């Protein structure tokens, strides 16, 4: 049993690209948790997508041993946290498992929106925040400025913050020493009834669900029966241990202050919700840990296999992904245009993109995704209230008494030169200006209330292109606000394509309808006859484009009985057809469905 005063539980908070994974790698290296020859860049991020995007999707944890300058060995539990707003809840649970947080600030970029949001979250959880100024090797680095930003904006002392370069390995030891001296050791009563927090879980095909826990009070041994308090389920534990950098290391028991894992032949990850409290079934604690909530999807979209025959494969893939992602939800849905697919609920846009990408990459599926929709609240003339997450189900305008849409509090951190551009963008996205604050003389925090449906499309891309990538953005759900909403339908050759319908604010309908018809015209190849592309609200056409008829596609000559070219052409056309969806008389390529998701150029 490790004495608690030798344990340090901490996480690392950083904005995307500020060097969180690189610092984590350096720490692993310096503590010799991983031998140098095994070092692979960004060891903690082990999903391909995470490595490519430089983000953490799932929380992950590792135990390290550090031989400190005071001659003692310390056990560090580094808990990696996702940095994105979509996973705010997961972040909050990871923070709750720690006593301290290392806050990385890029010496040239300063504080960003996500840094701040997560730092506030850490302070809320009474974590000791240890600022670290990274990337001091960059020519544009200004560590003094970064330090004063931390002091001014967050209000914590930072002048003696370690100044490091994770990339070059400069001053990493200073960070480790400061973790020992500054971050408090856990203080839990090892003899109290077991109280452990679930901060992550995943499915292993041999062991069942593996739960990552932080033991706050009491202890647990393999073979004991645990109770998951919110799930109201009991399981007999099989294996208990801690997380090594490469493998799980069984040790048989965990004590107060420690971080580790439990397996208990659990089949359904839905039973092991992040934030739930694990206690001993025979000697339960009096009350569960605070802060547990069931997270609900914010964004919905239809996911269809490009090849209708792959419906079963898609279902299997979604089921497998759900084993590791309790926040993903899906149910079967049928579209006239796209056939059989699934209505999927996501925590946010990033979550949606990640799921799509994993389906395509890990399960080799070609997908057609419909425009993401938020959940609208519609009050019918009958007084009944309906929540609509699928445009197809939007009621007839005549039967609606009022409609509301979700809005968010959004903070945009930007160099002041882009304020004009951003205000224009927010204006265009129906934003309400709330406040603007200078972080320092060059950077501001713009606070807007924005309808969620205006940011689910392509807000982030639009923001990046208007600020050359310098602005950062964070939001949280504020609530519902009354709105004039209409359903916009798209007609191809006079027939409504249900998969292309979406709900939009009345004032934006014309512009979006026009843009949409233009995009479809660009992305639908010429057909054997002229095809009108129309946008309509109710029965009223508000925009129209025409895809001209195909004029020429012929092989004039087959020389000397050589018909191989004709055959090759036919094969090519057959291949092409597989990527097409037949909508009535019109063949629509997968790309056309994708193109309408990004209307902002």
């Amino acid at each position, binding site marked *: 049993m490790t004495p608690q005063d030798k344990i340090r539980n901490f996480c690392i908070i950083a904005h995307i690209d500020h060097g969180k994974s690189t610092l984590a790698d350096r720490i692993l290296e310096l503590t010799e948790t991983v031998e140098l020859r095994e070092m692979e860049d960004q060891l903690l991020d082990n999903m391909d997508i995470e490595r490519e995007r430089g983000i953490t999707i799932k929380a992950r944890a590792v135990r390290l041993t550090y031989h400190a300058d005071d001659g003692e060995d310390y056990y560090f539990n580094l808990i990696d946290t996702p940095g994105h707003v979509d996973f705010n809840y997961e972040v909050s649970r990871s923070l709750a498992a720690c006593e301290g947080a290392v806050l990385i600030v890029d010496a040239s970029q300063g504080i960003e929106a996500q840094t701040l949001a997560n730092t506030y979250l850490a302070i809320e959880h009474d974590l000791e925040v240890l600022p670290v100024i990274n990337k001091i090797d960059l020519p544009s680095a200004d560590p003094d400025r970064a330090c004063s930003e931390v002091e001014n904006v967050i209000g914590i002392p930072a002048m003696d913050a370690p100044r490091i370069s994770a990339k070059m390995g400069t001053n990493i030891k200073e960070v480790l020493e400061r973790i020992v001296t500054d971050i408090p050791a856990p203080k839990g009563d090892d003899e109290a009834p077991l109280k452990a927090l679930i901060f992550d879980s995943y499915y292993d095909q041999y062991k069942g669900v593996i739960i990552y826990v932080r033991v706050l009070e009491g202890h647990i041994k393999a073979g004991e029966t645990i109770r998951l308090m919110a799930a109201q389920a009991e399981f007999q534990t099989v294996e208990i241990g801690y997380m090594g950098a490469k493998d799980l290391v069984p040790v048989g028991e965990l004590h107060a202050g420690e971080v580790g894992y439990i397996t208990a032949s659990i089949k359904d990850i839905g039973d092991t919700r992040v934030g739930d409290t694990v206690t001993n079934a025979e000697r339960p604690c009096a009350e569960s840990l605070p802060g547990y909530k069931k997270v609900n999807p914010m964004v919905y979209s239809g996911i269809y296999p490009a090849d209708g025959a792959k419906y079963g494969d898609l279902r299997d893939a979604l089921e497998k992904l759900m084993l590791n992602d309790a926040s993903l939800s899906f149910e079967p849905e049928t579209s006239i245009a796209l056939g059989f697919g699934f209505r999927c609920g996501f925590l946010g846009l990033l979550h949606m993109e990640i799921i799509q990408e994993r389906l395509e990459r890990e399960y080799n599926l070609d997908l057609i995704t419909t425009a993401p929709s938020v959940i609208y609240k519609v009050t019918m003339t009958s007084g009944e209230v309906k929540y609509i997450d699928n445009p197809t189900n939007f009621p007839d305008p005549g039967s609606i008494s009022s409609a509301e849409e979700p809005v968010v509090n959004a903070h945009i951190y930007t160099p002041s030169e882009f304020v004009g551009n951003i205000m224009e963008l927010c204006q265009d996205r129906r934003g309400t200006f709330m406040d603007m604050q200078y972080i320092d003389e060059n950077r501001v925090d713009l606070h807007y209330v924005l309808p969620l449906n205006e940011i689910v499309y392509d807000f982030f891309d639009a923001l990046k292109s208007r600020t050359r990538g310098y602005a950062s953005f964070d939001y949280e759900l504020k609530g519902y606000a009354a709105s004039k909403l209409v359903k916009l339908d798209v007609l191809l050759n006079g027939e409504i394509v249900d998969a292309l319908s979406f709900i939009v604010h009345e004032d934006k309908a014309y512009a979006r309808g026009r843009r949409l018809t233009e995009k479809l015209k660009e992305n639908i190849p010429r057909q*054997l*006859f002229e095809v009108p592309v129309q946008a309509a609200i109710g029965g009223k056409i508000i925009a129209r484009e025409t895809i001209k008829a195909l*004029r020429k596609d*012929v092989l*004039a*000559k087959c020389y*000397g009985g050589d*018909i*191989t070219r*004709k055959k090759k052409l036919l094969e090519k056309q057959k291949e092409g057809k597989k990527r097409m969806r037949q909508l009535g008389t019109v063949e629509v390529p997968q790309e056309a469905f994708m193109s309408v998701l990004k209307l902002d150029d």
Partner: protein
Amino acid sequence: MHGLYVHIPFCLRKCPYCSFYSVRFEEDTAEKYVQALCRNIEAYEGRGLKADTLYFGGGTPSVLTAEQVGRVVDECRQVFVLDDAEITLEANPCTVDEQKLRQLRTAGVNRISFGIQSADDKRLGFLGRLHDFRTAENAVRAAAAAGFENISGDLMLGTAGENCDSLRASVEALCALPLTHISAYMLKIEEGTPFDTDKVRSMTADDELMSDLYLAAVEQLEKNGFVQYEISNFAKEGYESRHNNKYWLGEEYLGFGAAAHSYFEGVRYCCPPDVQRFIESPLQPKEVTEEAPDRAEEYVLLGLRLSKGISIDRIAELYSPAKSHDLKNAALELAAHGLVRVRENVLSLTAEGFLVSNTIIAKFIDILSC
């Protein structure tokens, strides 16, 4: 009855738009090549095969002497009988005079096809042809004088600067000659040819103009009594090319020579495009392009190139009555747009339909095979 195809891959000069296999003409090589042809034809002796068409294509078959052509014809007669056969030779107007044409006629050739391409010398220059229109006119008249009753001319559509009016003039000039058959091909810039440049592309007809030119050609030819029977082929009554029809009707043919294609005993294959290898091989090498072609699919694919189209009853036999019904419905939909004709139980493409025939055929096959 089989068709016979003999490929003569020699040219005096390669046309800049041509992507077919040919090499520079040399007398020695040509003679060895003819001997190799005869050797290969002889190999079929004693199998009781009969043929009713023989087609010398190229390249430029008319670079051979009449004697050489005669030797190949005789060899074919020996092996494949050739009763009442249609024997065609493609000719460059520069390579023949009345005397040689008489000799060819005597050697058994009864149909001659001239690569006239245009009645406008500017366009002939653009195409890099060795002849001018006067030479072409003389060649056609000389052929008629030499006893050829069945004479075909090629016309190229969409060369630089061409418009519908200049095209109609070319068609009229061709129709004034004693021709019984005209092939009108849309110029296609082939990858890797000297024509494969942005400049040439910008000078020649785009899809819109090419379509207009094609429809103008069809109309003008029909006015002159040349009835369209295939996407690119037009004939006076009774003068359709029997040999070419075999390709579209799914009949079998044997090809001899480097780069010649065959469809024989149910297999599609070709001889590799290599003159030396052909000459040196005891029997011509064979590369199978398709072991067991889908006959039903080919019926649609090839049959729809013909104006007479395909039979819906036959589709019912080859696929199923239900599929033929689906096909007919799809065809009726396209008929409303003027692309397809559905008469009785015959389904065929209109001239507008021919222009987009790849797409239509792919659509039909998709319906039949799904």
